[in-house]
């Protein structure tokens, strides 16, 4: 049962991250996801100091606001100071992350967070941290509910805003001319990324969550030419890598989140080589076939 809880929690988080990641990589903003996942750290620590719990609603909200704030800072440095986007990202998220690290070390006694947990997370504890009702009923692992809620919110957000998100991703100038606010949808998307990152924080940590945001979406991008199909493949990759990752971790007796991301990396490598449309080997094969065809047809012409 523990294995099931862990895999299910990981899968739900991976799906949430993957769906948002589809938009992020097409917006060429994968690294903004990276930035947000680090930048929310001070928000998490402050919210933790204020509320005393690690997965309260206030905490997710507070961190989401910091995530949006960091997006704003990045845009601000980029447009107002005319700093390159990647430089703006680098300055913003390291600074906010450093702030978080200091907060943790200063309040080490009061905060049930340490650097290791922040960076790597620990999904193995999911089955232990149970949600127990007022009358003593055990509802199951708390993280599972958080993961499920996160997924529901994300799916609802993408379903409601699909047209706008799709349009502002593909052709922002056109979107603006028909009255769709490009910056509003950008901030909403980044808000969703922040919220998801914070929710997944306990389980996978600040570094590995980036792999969940980018990895499955990147694999799906290589496999299809349709956006909707890309999202479906992403979900599939999220499920497969969570399950395989868990058993890999059990097998080597190591970190589960690390194993999941390792599996994503391996899947990406396989896709990169063998994808029918974009794969390196398939392209080579097509080129060979084409050369062969030209050779055999040449004498006729």
């Amino acid at each position: 049962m523990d294995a099931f809880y862990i895999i299910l929690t990981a899968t739900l988080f991976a799906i949430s991250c993957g769906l948002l990641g589809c938009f992020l990589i097409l917006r060429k903003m994968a690294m903004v996801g990276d930035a947000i996942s680090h930048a929310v750290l001070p928000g998490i620590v402050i919210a933790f100091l204020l509320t005393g719990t690690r997965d309260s609603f206030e905490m997710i909200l507070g961190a989401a606001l910091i995530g949006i704030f960091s997006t704003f800072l990045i845009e601000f440095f980029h447009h107002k100071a005319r700093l390159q986007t990647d430089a703006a990202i680098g300055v913003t998220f390291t600074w906010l992350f450093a702030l978080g690290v200091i907060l943790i070390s200063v309040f080490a006694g009061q905060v049930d967070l340490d650097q290791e947990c922040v960076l790597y997370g620990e999904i193995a504890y999911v089955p232990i941290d149970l949600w127990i009702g007022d009358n003593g009923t055990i509802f199951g692992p708390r993280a599972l509910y958080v993961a499920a809620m996160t997924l529901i919110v994300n799916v609802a957000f993408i379903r409601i805003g699909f047209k706008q998100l799709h349009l502002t991703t593909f052709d922002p100038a056109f979107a603006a001319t028909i009255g769709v606010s490009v910056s509003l949808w950008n901030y909403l998307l980044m808000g969703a990324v922040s919220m998801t990152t914070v929710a997944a924080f306990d389980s996978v940590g600040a570094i590995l969550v980036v792999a969940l945001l980018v990895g499955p979406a990147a694999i799906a991008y290589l496999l299809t030419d349709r956006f909707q199909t890309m999202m479906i493949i992403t979900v599939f990759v999220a499920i497969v890598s969570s399950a395989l990752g868990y058993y890999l971790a059990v097998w080597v007796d190591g970190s589960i989140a690390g194993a999941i991301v390792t599996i994503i990396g391996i899947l990406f490598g396989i896709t990169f080589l063998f994808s029918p449309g974009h794969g390196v080997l398939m392209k080579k094969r097509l080129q060979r076939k084409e050369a062969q065809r030209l050779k055999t047809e040449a004498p006729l012409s």
Partner: protein
Amino acid sequence: MKVEAQEPVVEFHDLTVSYHKKPVLWNIDMTLPKGALIGIIGPNGAGKSTLIKSAMGLLPLASGYVRIFDEALDDVRHRVSYVPQRESVDWDFPTSVLDVVLMGRYAKLGLLTRPRKADKEMALNCLRKVGMEAYVDRQISQLSGGQQQRVFLARALAQEADLYFMDEPFAGVDAATEAAILSIMQEMTAQGKTVIVVHHDLQSAAEFFDWIVLLNMRLVASGPIDKVFTNEMLQETYGGKLTVLAEVGELVRKRQIPSREKY
């Protein structure tokens, strides 16, 4: 040289636009007529694209205003269509030709409504008009430059607007596409729609447009082609850069104006 339009659809009033505090358009003041095929002509960096972007509210205005159908843009957005430069989007985006054309219907749909059957029919119709009906399900990265431009035009048609701003629709397209786009534009203007096109080729400009706007950071001329498209006006627009355009050079030579280099 400025001719005011009889029945203006767009009015630029003392428009100044700056990029990072450096003005790129100065005091543009003109009116453009209804039902005309209008070419905005000028050298590179003259602010042609900037002019239509500012009309579409994509750039902040340093001063002045633009009125469309004698109203603010926000009140008439649904009647105006903008076709960005082809290079402005990522054509490797995983989407199909039909999906791109359907985007032209988004403005007419609410937040939650998905494109309906009628919208799809409409999109298909627009694709038929631009001769792309065979490519409906094609992934957009497989299109040639001319086909990409046709898809953008189909998306604009799907908007059913009355005024169209197009940024370099003829740039880098094949001859067949050029002819197809031109004939669609002429059909549109015949229906009383106004088409405003950023264009950089003087040779074809003389054949394409009814009304010409000559621009080089400031407004040089605006008026019917026979009044505006003159040697003198072109000289003024393109400045002393005689090498820029063979045609201008040719005119100069014919009239035996001494070139500056010889002087």
